């Protein structure tokens, strides 16, 4: 990856002279972005999954590739020791509400958020929720079996294990959230005392 970044940076310095303009995607990326704070140019490199999922809408991907990526995603999931899935729902609520983390404007020392409300309804009392993903209000009522817990953990860890090219970030697989934060989110979803599972008048 370092070599690739160096290559991109070299292109960037060429473009900076104003003598040339990009003709290709990698050239354009290399000449247009610059590293800032803790965010480096390596961020622009795609892994095979990202590359596969970058096809313009309507363009079908190779189905063999798709199942290989799905299998790889499934294999990437690390379950908590002793299947101890459930943390503290109140802390989970904070993770769900926090939209910060990994932006160049964020404090790299502060914990990352899950930004769940950007896309999902959770606590029914919170009116500011997005709809890019399905509503998760009342999630605990979907069941509390081991299968359900493992399924949900897997979705949080690497959503592509079930839905290749889902819009959701890979919170576990890419290290956005810690194992403890994921457990707290699980509690936020499943704990009967969690606001997610309360009704409002």
């Amino acid at each position, binding site marked *: 990856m370092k070599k690739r970044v160096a290559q991109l940076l070299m292109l960037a310095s060429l473009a900076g002279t104003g003598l040339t303009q990009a003709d290709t995607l990698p050239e354009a990326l290399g000449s247009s972005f610059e590293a*800032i704070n803790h965010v480096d140019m390596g961020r622009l490199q795609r892994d095979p999954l990202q590359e596969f*999922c970058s096809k313009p809408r309507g363009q079908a991907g190779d189905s063999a590739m798709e199942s290989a990526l799905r299998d790889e995603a499934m294999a990437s999931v690390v379950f908590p020791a002793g299947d101890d899935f459930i943390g503290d729902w109140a802390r989970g609520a904070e993770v769900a509400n926090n939209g910060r983390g990994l932006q*160049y404007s964020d404090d790299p020392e502060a914990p990352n958020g899950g930004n769940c409300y*950007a896309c999902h309804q959770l606590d029914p009392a919170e009116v500011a*929720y997005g709809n*890019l993903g399905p509503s998760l209000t009342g999630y605990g009522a979907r069941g509390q079996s081991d299968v359900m817990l493992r399924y949900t953990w897997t979705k949080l860890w690497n959503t592509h294990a079930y839905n290749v090219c889902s819009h959701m970030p890979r919170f576990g697989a890419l290290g956005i959230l810690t194992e403890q934060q994921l457990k707290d989110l699980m509690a936020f979803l499943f704990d009967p005392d969690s606001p997610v599972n*309360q*009704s409002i008048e």
Partner: protein
Amino acid sequence: MDLMESIRNAWRLAALFGLLVAAAPSFGEDAGIFDEYRAMFGDDNPAVFVIDEGEEYWFEPQGPKNSSLEGCDLGLGPGVVEGAYARLPRYFADADMMMDVEARLIFCMRELQGRPSEEIQGYPYSMRGDLGTELEALVAWLADQSSGMPIAPGQEHAKEREFFTLGEQLFYYRAGPHDFSCATCHGQEGKRIRLQALPDLTSHEGAAGAYSAWPAYRISEGVVRTMGWRMRDCFRQQRFPLLGVGSDVTVALQTYLAVTAAGAPMMAPGLKR
């Protein structure tokens, strides 16, 4: 596992007593919840001040050459500002480059005024506590000079068509620790993030609504923001590095958007959250 068992029991109890959560109320897209709020603003858009300031900057002699920008060719000939914004981005033979309004202004400042590009590129957009920057003001005025005119970016030159394709590829480019592309948020109709409606920028209607309204006075920040800033800040939230002003990526994406929006009238500077 005791904890899990007790949680399951609690659920069984809850179900028994019929306490399960009722379907929570759900808003549609924007569902008009901010209509009342937005209606209270009426026509009073503080961008009017910024438009005036932009006009003053255009005619003000500056830089080592002590020259104004009056001779700047925005694509319709030197000094022609009316309708020029609506025809961007476009290919400029004198620079042999595709340029958006910001790239072109920086080019003109260098060529006509002798000001180094870094002067503007280093501080293009307002930071907290600022009332505005020269670039924002110029863009606001130029957009106002195209108000009501149809969006009609250049697509004759090979480079112009190439940049449309490049822009489309960039729109779907997923990368970074969150796997986000532009399409993650702006590729479907009827979506919102938190409560903010997300235009589907792949459709003519969505692209037209978005492209025609920038630059805009952003009430949350008290300043006019440009389309270039909008792109930069989207990429910040995509967890990408810093997007350069007037860079190939921003020009290509704006070309993709403007072509998708073509024909719709410019309505900028608008009023945004």
